C-alpha cells in the first residue's frame, strides 16, 4: 500500500463530490436529483476506500499506519501529517459508514435546498475523517473546529422550529470549549518545538503545566462529548436538527470528545489525568444516573435518545479514565457501539417523524399492528441500547464495568445502575410507541418501512449483532494501540515520580 496516499484520498474524496455538486447547473429539480446521487456515490466510494484501509491495517501493530507527511508551513515544523492507529481506525470507518446512510435517510425528507444540504454533509464527512486521521496538532484542530460550520448550517437551515436557537447554542458552546483547547495546543507546540502529535505524546510536560493543559483540553472535549453539566446543548441540538444531522451528531461528533481524551489527555498529560480522575468519575456518575432519570421523564423521542447518549458517554469517560486495558477497550467499543445504535435510534425516530411529523411519544401507540418491520428494527436497537447480551451495547458496558471494578468498586456499582435505568426508559418508550392499541385515527393508515429505509437499517442491524457476537473483530485491532497507550502512560508516570523523588532527596 505504500506510496498511495489512501488517507488523503479518503479524507478529501467527499469534498471532491461536494465540488462536483456545486458546479451543477440546471433547474432545481434536476440539480436536487443529481446532488442526491452524486452525494450517495461519493460517500459510498469513500466508504469502500475506508474498508480498504481496514483490510490493509496491520492489527498487530501499535504504530501509526498509512502515515503521510508533507511539509505544510515551512520553517515552523507544522506538517500535513496523517495516519491511523487502532484507536482511530474504527472512528474513520464509523464516519464513512454513517454518511452514506444519512444521505440515504435524507433522500425524501429534505426537499429544500438539496444541493446545499448534500454539500454540507460531504464537507462534514471530510472534516470528520480528517479529525480522526490528523497527526499534527494544527491539522487536527483545523478539522476538529471546522466541523462546527457545516453542522451549524445543517441544524440552522434544515432544522425544526427552534432551529436557530439550537444552532447558536451548539456553535457557541463548542466554540467556547475549543478556543481554550487551541491555547493548550499552542502551549504544547511551543514546549515540544513541533506540532507532531506522536512527538507530543512522548514529551514529558512539567506537572503544573499539565494541570492547565488538561483543563483546557477538558473544556473542549467535555463539551463535545458532552459531559454533565455542559451537556445542555445536546438535547436542543438533537431535537431541532434534521434526522440525519442528529445521526451524525450522535454517531460521530460526540466521539470526537472521547477520541480527544484518548489521543491528547491521557498520553500527553498522564499526571494531570490521574489527578483529575475523581472529577471525571464524579461527573460521569452524575451523568449516568441523572441523565438516565431525565430521559425517563421525556415526552419527546429525540430528546430521550439525546439524554440516553449523555448517559452512555458517561460510561465512555469512566472506562477511559480507569486506565485499565478492559476499561479503555470498553470505552472505545462503547463509543463505536453507541455510534451505531444511537444513530439507528435517531433514524428510527426519523422514520415515524417523516410520516406523522411529530416526535411526541404520546402521539404514537400500537405501531406494531401496522409496521411490523419497523417494530422489529426499533426493538433491536432499543435492546442494543439497553445492553442486552448478544448486541453491541453489552460488550462495551461490561468491559467498562470490568475496568471500573478493578479501580474502584463504588464507581463500578454506581455506573452499573445505568443498566437498570437504561432498561427502564427504553422499555417504557418502546411499549408506549410500539405496543398497545392504535388509538389515533391517523395512525391506522401509517405505512411500514419502504425498501430505501430497509436498506438504511440493514447494515446497522447486521453490525449490532456482529459487534455483539464477535467483538474481537473490533477489539483485536485496537488492542496493541491501547496497550501501548497504557504502557507509555505508566512509563511517563514513573519517570515523573522519579524526578520528584530526586527533588525531595
Amino acid at each position: 500500500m505504500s506510496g498511495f496516499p489512501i488517507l488523503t484520498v479518503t479524507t478529501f474524496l467527499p469534498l471532491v463530490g461536494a465540488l462536483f455538486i456545486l458546479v451543477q447547473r440546471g433547474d432545481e429539480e434536476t440539480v436536487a436529483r443529481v446532488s442526491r446521487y452524486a452525494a450517495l456515490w461519493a460517500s459510498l466510494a469513500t466508504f469502500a476506500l475506508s474498508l480498504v484501509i481496514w483490510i490493509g491495517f496491520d492489527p498487530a501493530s501499535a504504530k501509526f499506519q498509512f502515515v503521510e507527511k508533507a511539509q505544510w508551513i515551512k520553517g515552523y515544523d507544522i506538517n500535513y501529517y496523517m495516519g491511523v492507529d487502532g484507536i482511530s481506525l474504527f472512528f474513520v470507518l464509523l464516519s464513512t459508514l454513517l454518511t452514506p446512510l444519512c444521505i440515504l435517510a435524507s433522500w425524501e425528507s429534505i426537499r429544500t435546498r438539496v444541493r446545499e444540504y448534500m454539500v454540507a454533509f460531504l464537507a462534514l464527512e471530510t472534516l470528520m475523517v480528517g479529525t480522526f486521521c490528523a497527526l499534527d496538532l494544527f491539522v487536527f484542530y483545523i478539522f476538529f473546529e471546522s466541523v462546527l460550520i457545516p453542522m451549524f448550517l445543517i441544524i440552522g437551515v434544515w432544522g425544526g422550529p427552534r432551529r436557530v436557537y439550537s444552532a447558536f447554542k451548539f456553535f457557541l458552546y463548542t466554540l467556547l470549549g475549543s478556543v481554550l483547547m487551541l491555547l493548550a495546543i499552542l502551549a504544547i507546540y511551543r514546549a515540544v518545538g513541533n506540532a507532531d502529535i506522536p512527538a507530543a505524546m512522548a514529551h514529558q510536560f512539567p506537572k503544573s503545566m499539565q494541570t492547565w493543559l488538561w483543563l483546557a483540553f477538558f473544556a473542549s472535549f467535555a463539551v463535545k462529548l458532552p459531559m454533565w453539566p455542559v451537556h445542555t446543548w445536546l438535547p436542543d441540538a438533537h431535537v431541532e436538527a434534521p434526522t440525519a444531522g442528529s445521526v451524525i451528531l450522535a454517531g460521530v461528533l460526540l466521539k470526537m470528545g472521547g477520541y480527544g481524551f484518548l489521543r491528547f489527555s491521557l498520553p500527553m498529560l498522564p499526571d494531570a489525568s490521574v489527578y483529575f480522575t475523581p472529577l471525571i468519575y464524579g461527573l460521569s456518575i452524575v451523568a449516568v444516573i441523572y441523565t438516565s432519570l431525565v430521559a425517563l421523564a421525556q415526552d419527546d423521542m429525540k430528546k430521550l435518545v439525546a439524554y440516553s447518549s449523555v448517559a452512555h458517554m458517561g460510561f465512555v469517560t469512566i472506562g477511559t479514565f480507569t486506565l485499565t486495558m478492559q476499561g479503555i477497550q470498553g470505552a472505545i467499543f462503547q463509543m463505536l457501539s453507541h455510534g451505531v445504535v444511537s444513530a439507528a435510534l435517531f433514524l428510527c425516530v426519523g422514520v415515524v417523524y417523516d410520516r406523522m411529523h411529530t416526535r411526541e411519544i404520546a402521539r404514537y401507540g400500537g405501531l406494531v399492528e401496522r409496521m411490523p418491520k419497523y417494530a422489529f428494527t426499533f426493538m433491536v436497537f432499543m435492546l442494543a441500547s439497553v445492553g442486552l447480551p448478544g448486541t453491541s451495547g453489552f460488550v462495551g458496558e461490561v468491559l467498562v464495568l470490568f475496568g471500573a471494578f478493578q479501580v474502584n468498586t463504588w464507581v463500578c456499582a454506581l455506573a452499573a445502575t445505568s443498566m437498570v435505568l437504561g432498561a427502564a426508559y427504553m422499555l417504557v418508550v418502546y411499549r408506549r410507541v410500539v405496543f398497545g392499541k392504535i388509538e389515533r385515527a391517523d395512525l391506522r393508515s401509517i405505512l411500514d418501512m419502504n425498501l430505501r429505509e430497509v436498506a438504511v437499517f440493514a447494515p446497522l442491524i447486521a453490525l449490532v449483532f456482529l459487534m455483539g457476537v464477535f467483538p474481537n473483530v473490533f477489539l483485536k485491532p485496537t488492542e496493541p494501540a491501547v496497550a501501548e497507550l497504557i504502557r507509555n502512560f505508566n512509563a511517563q508516570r514513573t519517570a515523573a515520580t522519579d524526578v520528584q523523588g530526586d527533588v525531595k532527596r
Partner: protein
Amino acid sequence: MIPVVHNPVPASAEIFLALAAMALLMVGAFWKRGAQARVASVLALSILAVAGVVLIGVTPPRNVIFHGQFIADHFALFMKLLILIGSGLTLLMSLDYIEREGMARFEYPVLVLFATLGMMMMVSANDLIALYIGIELQSLSLYVVAAFKRDEVRSTEAGLKYFVLGALSSGMLLYGASLVYGFAGSTNFAVLAKLLAQGAPGSTSVGLIVGVVFVMAGLAFKVSAVPFHMWTPDVYEGAPTPVTAFFAVAPKIAAISLFTRVMMGPFGPLVMEWRQIVVAVAIASMILGALAAINQTNIKRLMAYSSIGHVGYALVGLAAANPSGVRGILIYMATYLFMNLGTFACILSMKRQGKMVETIADLAGLARSQSKVAYALAIFMLSMIGLPPFAGFFGKLFVFLAAIEAGLYALAVIGMLTSVVGAYYYIRIVKIMFMEEPASPFDRPQGQVAAVMGLSAIVTLLFFVFCWPLFYAAEAAAKVLIGS
C-alpha cells in the same frame, strides 16, 4: 550599525507617489469638465500599482536615509504593500459608487493618493518629527474624504467629528513627543533606543514615561483602540461606504505598524513600563469589540466595533513584545486586510433598485436571493471569528502563539473568550442570510466590486494553502524590526 545612505533611492516609491499625486492634482484642476473622476481614479490606480512595483524594486533589507528621518526595511515593505493593496482595491471598489452617489470629483482619488503617501511615511518614520508629518498628511486627507459626500449631513458630520477628535489626538501625540524630546534629548528613533537602553531599569525619568504614555494615547486614537475609540462608529457609519472600507483597512494597517515600530524600536527598552498599558488597551478593545457590536443594526457600525475588536487582537501581539509578536501582527494585518475588503465589497453590493441599504436586517435570506454574495460574506464573517480553515484563524493563531511565548496566559485566555462572545454577532449575520426568509433581492454586484469580493473570498478561503510564503515574509520583516 544601520547603514546610513545619502541617496534617496530607498524612498523612490514615496517620491514617485508624491510627484504623481501632485501632477494628478494639477491635471485635474486644469482639466475641462467631463468624465474626469473616472479617468483620475484609473490613473490613481495605476500610480498605486507603479508605486508598489517600485517599492518592491528599491527597498533594501535595512537602510536609513534623510539624516535618520526615514527608514526603509522589510517590515516597512510588508506593511506598505498591504497599504497599497488596501488603497488600490478600495479605490477600485469606489469607481461606480462615486459616480452614482454624486461624488464624482477628481479630488477623491487624489486625496486617497495623498493619504496613502502619508501612511507610507508613517510606516517608514524613523523620527518623531517624520512620524508626525506622516500622520498629519494621512489624517488631513482622510478628514476631507470622510466628508466627501458634502451634501449629506451624516457624511459632513463624520468628517467634522473625525477632524476634531483626530486633531485632539494629534495634539496629544505632539505633546508626548515634545516631552520625550525634552527628557531624552532626541527625536530620532535609533538615538532614543540607544539612550533608553543605557539607563538602568527603573531609572527612567517620570517625565519621559509621561511622554511615552501621551504618544501611546495618540497612537491608540489612530488605531481606534479602547478607550480612544469613540470616533470610530460614527465615522464608519457616516462616511460614504467605500471611504469606510478605506478607513477600515489602510489607515489601520499604517497606524498599527507605526505603533509597533515606535514601541518595539525607540521605546523597546521601556517594555516593562508600557506593556501593562498595551495589555489593558488590548483587553478593553477586545471586550468592547465583542460586546458593543451585539446590539448594532447598521452593518457599517457593526464593522466599526468589529475593527475595534480586531485592533485589540493585533495589540495582543504587541503586548507580547517579542519577534513572534511582531510576526503575529504582520500576519494578522494581512488577513485583516482581505477579510475587511471583502466584507465591505459585500456591503457595497447591498443595493436595491440602485439604492444603498445598510441595516443587517436587509441581509435576510440573502443565501437564496443573491447566493454568491451570501457565501462570500459568510466566509468573511466566519474568518473574522477566527474559525479554521479561514485566514482569520491563522492571524489569531500567530498572535496568541506570541502571547503564550511571552507568558501572557491571562491575556490569551481573555482574548480567546472574547472571540467566542464576538462570534455571536458574526454568526448572527450568517444566520440572517441563511436561515431567514428572503427579503426583496439585491441588485447584482457590479464588476469591480464583485472582483474585489471574489478575490478576497478566495484569499480568505484558501489562505491555508499558500500561507507559508507570507509567514516567511512576516518572519523576515519581524526579524528586521527587532534587530535594531
